[in-house]
């Protein structure tokens, strides 16, 4: 069994505590999370750091994991139907280009994410808004 320790950063608040995860790579499972020495956490974690990784197991408590792209094929009010990535990307880009052509780039609003995705994803999103769409309408929930 390939069991490995990997250090990562907690995603539950701005304190940025370092967590040492023990991962069973064969079974693709996190086994345990314990504090790792970090500049801010200094070898401690709160409850969220200790137990907050369980959401990834999709325990079906509150909401369910999104597992494939979905589109309301027949417009608003119709059911969401699973589609391939190619179809989803084609649909989104097509509609974005239509809206941009008709109403201009500033009719489109994008968000970054202050949560799990990380800095690189935020960089790519704002580059997308500015360079591909052509608007500075990009923001995130810092205000909230």
């Amino acid at each position, binding site marked *: 069994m390939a069991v490995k320790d990997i250090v990562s950063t907690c995603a539950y608040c*701005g304190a940025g505590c370092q967590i040492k995860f023990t991962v069973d790579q064969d079974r693709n499972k996190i086994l345990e999370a314990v504090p790792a020495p970090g*500049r801010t956490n200094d070898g401690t974690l709160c409850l969220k750091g200790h137990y907050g990784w369980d959401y990834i197991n999709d*325990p079906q408590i509150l909401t369910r994991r999104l597992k494939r*792209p979905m589109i309301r094929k027949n417009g*608003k009010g119709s059911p*969401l139907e699973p589609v391939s990535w190619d179809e989803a990307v084609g649909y989104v880009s097509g509609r974005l280009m239509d809206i941009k052509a008709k109403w201009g780039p500033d009719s489109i609003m994008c968000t970054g994410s202050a949560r799990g995705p990380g800095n690189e994803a*935020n960089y790519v999103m704002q580059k997308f808004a500015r360079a591909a769409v*052509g608007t500075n309408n990009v923001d995130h929930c810092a205000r909230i």
Partner: protein
Amino acid sequence: MSNGVHEIEDAALLFVFGYNGADSHPIVARRIVRAKQKGATIICCDPRRIETARIADMHLQLRNGSNLALVNSLAQVIIEEGLTDDKFIEEHSSGFEEFKELVRVNYTPERVSAVTQIAPEDIRRAARLYATSGRSMILYGMGVCQFAQAVNVVKGLANLAIMTGNFGRWGVGIGPVRGQNNVQGACDMGALPNSYPGYQNVTVPEIQAKFEKAWGVKLPNKAGIALTQVPHYVLHEPEEKKIRCYYVFGEDPAQSDPDLPEVREALSKIDLVILQDIYMNKTGQYADVLLPSTGWNEHDGVFSCCDRGFQRIRKLVDPPADADVLTDWDIISRISTAMGYPMKYNNTEEIWNEVISLCPGFIGATYEKLEKYGNIQWPCRSADMSDKGTSFLHKDGKFANADGRARFSSIEWQKPTELENDEFPIILSTVREVGHYSVRTMSGNCRLLRNLEDEPGWVQMNPELCSDLGVRHGELVKVLSKRGHCIARCLPTERVKKQAVYMTYQWWIGACNELTIASLDPISNTPEYKYCACRVEKIDDQAWAEQYVLDEYVKIRESMGIDVRGNKRGEAA
């Protein structure tokens, strides 16, 4: 934060303003406790008797919504009693004379005590302690930021630090302790309507030219709109200015934004709503497209913690075998490419190298160094391994303004937008709860954490208010404002004064944002979550109310795609 989290324990005085560390950042709160053990004086400034208040030497239990009145008054005392650091003011600041004039008469402790409900003597004592400790640090949180007058209070706090020379050294400064884990990072990366990555302004021609060259495309030079302005742009702007597409990424405006009835109306009127997330959420119910992505622990990257520290996140596991999900940056790159602006990256390090090459303040924070040192606080201006980043800003009194000086801000206190009235006589303020996080799609889906608390959530009320209304601990009550209502459980607590009640915003049934007001700070566009007028009503038929909560909970979970009754699992719809 202008200073590092690790410096907190070395301050001689901590002035903790509108920041509830114990609930928002337990590990930062520990540093406050450690500072106390090392002999620091603690002043806590909060309308509730929060944990920090218990260990504080002074608790200024100010009235909700009086922040700047108190801050300006503290400044008034410091000036009046000659406790300013004149050398620092003279060498490193501008605008002091005007500020002095502003506070001199109108902000004496006597003048503001009606507004702040704090005894003049206490304001004097706190001002003296802050000005004379030698090493005072201010920590502030959402109790400052979530008002229509917010940025100006931050400027007011900065005034205090400037006039006493508490900037640019170890263990001083002023620190916003930010809520969500990567708020700092989203700002650092330019997910802001007015700045590119690294806080480079979109309206400055040279900066625009630099990014146009790097990205090979003409860029817009007009600042964009803030997230909190979206409902307005959908509902109230003329056709040609309306928002038609909302590409929501890892957020849940239909739960976390103020005045939810208005948000829902806006979401249902936008032509195209795209939700890119790991879990179904409330916004997803309005989405025309769902794009499923990898979650924290399933991808690599960098986070920025609250004191400007870059740290790595690492992929621990693959997404579930039956999930056809992609990383966020891959999804966006594919859409961009399909729109005729090709983006192609092989991994996050490639993206990161592009980021730092465009940001002088980040350029030295390479993956190699993050690997080696664990944490790099920006600015880190050199790729040389010896540059390990910067613990505190404004060293030697140098500030980011063009003339290198800090500027005093002369601003008057302003009342909150919606005051109590006959119909809604109580203040509603939204707060956080330890154990849960924001809209709960992550923490609420963790088996051990969800057991801590469950729907419909609590409303914290002063015991006297409870007995006036005839409600007891655990009883379901109705909370109403001009905009909406919800049901929550009564939690009597001496920690809060009779004039205000407090709710957390993560609940679906006890959704306090049904009530909150979308009144925004003119600069930051942060909503006034900390102040609106409400009323609490007793519910006579408790059996009905309990059944209502159960039924609603089932309904909502079903709408999120959970198999509540043991039926076959359907797609989220």
